[in-house]
């Protein structure tokens, strides 16, 4: 599973993402249980196909990939190694403390560290970025825009 990448963020494996919840092996049959990050994440279909391909290559005769919704995925399940890989890739990893989960308005922006110059002097541009899991930030220090893997 370490070799199955997230098609949108290829430096992360499905293990780094924390979406593989269980593996059941009976003889040469294998079932992988995964959970989607976002309801509408278009990468999920590709991910389950890639899991199937890689296991068939490894000699498993019967591969089932099952998707479950509950308990719901959260960025807390992302591995520390995965967060470091994100940072090196230029995407700010999710902050360890969940700060989004209420509907309070104009809440103070989270302190997000710029993955390029490490400054915390950054500004939220939009809560919605290039994919469902990211929001768009700008660094006030080095002026580079960057993606933040938002808390979820």
């Amino acid at each position, binding site marked *: 599973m370490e070799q199955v990448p997230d098609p949108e963020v290829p430096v992360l494996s499905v293990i780094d993402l924390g979406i593989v919840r269980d593996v059941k092996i009976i003889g040469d049959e294998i079932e992988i249980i995964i959970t*989607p990050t*976002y*309801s*509408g*994440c*278009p990468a999920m279909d590709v991910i389950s196909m890639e899991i199937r391909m890689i296991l068939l290559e490894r000699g498993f005769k019967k591969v089932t990939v099952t998707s*479950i*919704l*509950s*308990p*719901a*995925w959260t960025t807390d399940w992302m591995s520390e190694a995965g967060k470091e890989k994100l940072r090196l890739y230029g995407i700010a990893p999710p902050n360890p403390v969940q700060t*989004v*989960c*209420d*509907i*309070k*308005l*104009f*809440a103070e922006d989270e302190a997000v560290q710029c993955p390029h110059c490490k400054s915390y002097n950054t500004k939220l*541009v*939009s*809560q*919605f*970025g*290039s994919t*469902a899991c990211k929001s*768009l930030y700008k660094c006030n220090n080095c002026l580079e825009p960057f993606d933040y893997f938002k808390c*979820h």
Partner: protein
Amino acid sequence: LNYTLHLADNALILGQRNAEWTGHGPVLEQDIAISNISLDLIGQARNFYQYAATLINQSTSQSLNRSTEDTLAYLRNEKEFKNCLLVELKKGDWAFTVLRQFLFSTYQFYLYQQLQKSADAMLAAIAEKSLKEVTYHVRWSAEWVIRLGDGTTESNRRITGALHDLWPYTGELTGNAGYETALLAENLAVDLTTLKELWMDKIKEVLHEATLELPQNQWMQTGGKEGNHTEHLGFILAEMQYLQRTYPGVEW
């Protein structure tokens, strides 16, 4: 089943409606934001449709013409759709879009919060999965309502107009349809009348912040949840279903 389809139709139609902004948003970031919201809604709709298809297939022994998420989205007619009228109305201007999103997302937020406790494990799981997404939608849309209401004379004029136009369609959000009432005893559906106060408090808070007045008219347009729609639903379905109906089973 009707309840699951109703939840799915709400999400699908609003998702499809908002997707009309893709490539046409006022600025790139907001174009991406509204498209992201569409994607979340269509994802939720897929989960509900997949569940509905399982329910339909379980209840019939025939192996031909099995239901799938696609047959439910693309091959049902107007009268079979159970979405609220609010979500099918034309996209209007930006003020109309963000205000509708706010009215709807606030409803969906409290709905999913309760639906997580449903005795139906699958509906509860979909609600749990979707709740954080909806939280983002509420925050984003409420901030836009305030920005426009408390903005310029022109933005205030537009959102005041949108509020006037949308208000009569909000009644369906907090009134139970027959199939909802029928499921209450077994704790399968959420009793929408219990959400009314929560919904209204949040709406009042944001409208106040936006310097907008709560409309006083009490008369509400209903019927969507029972399949009686405005003329707008036919057009959006025609556009959405055209390809599947013209080339049945086509894939890409």
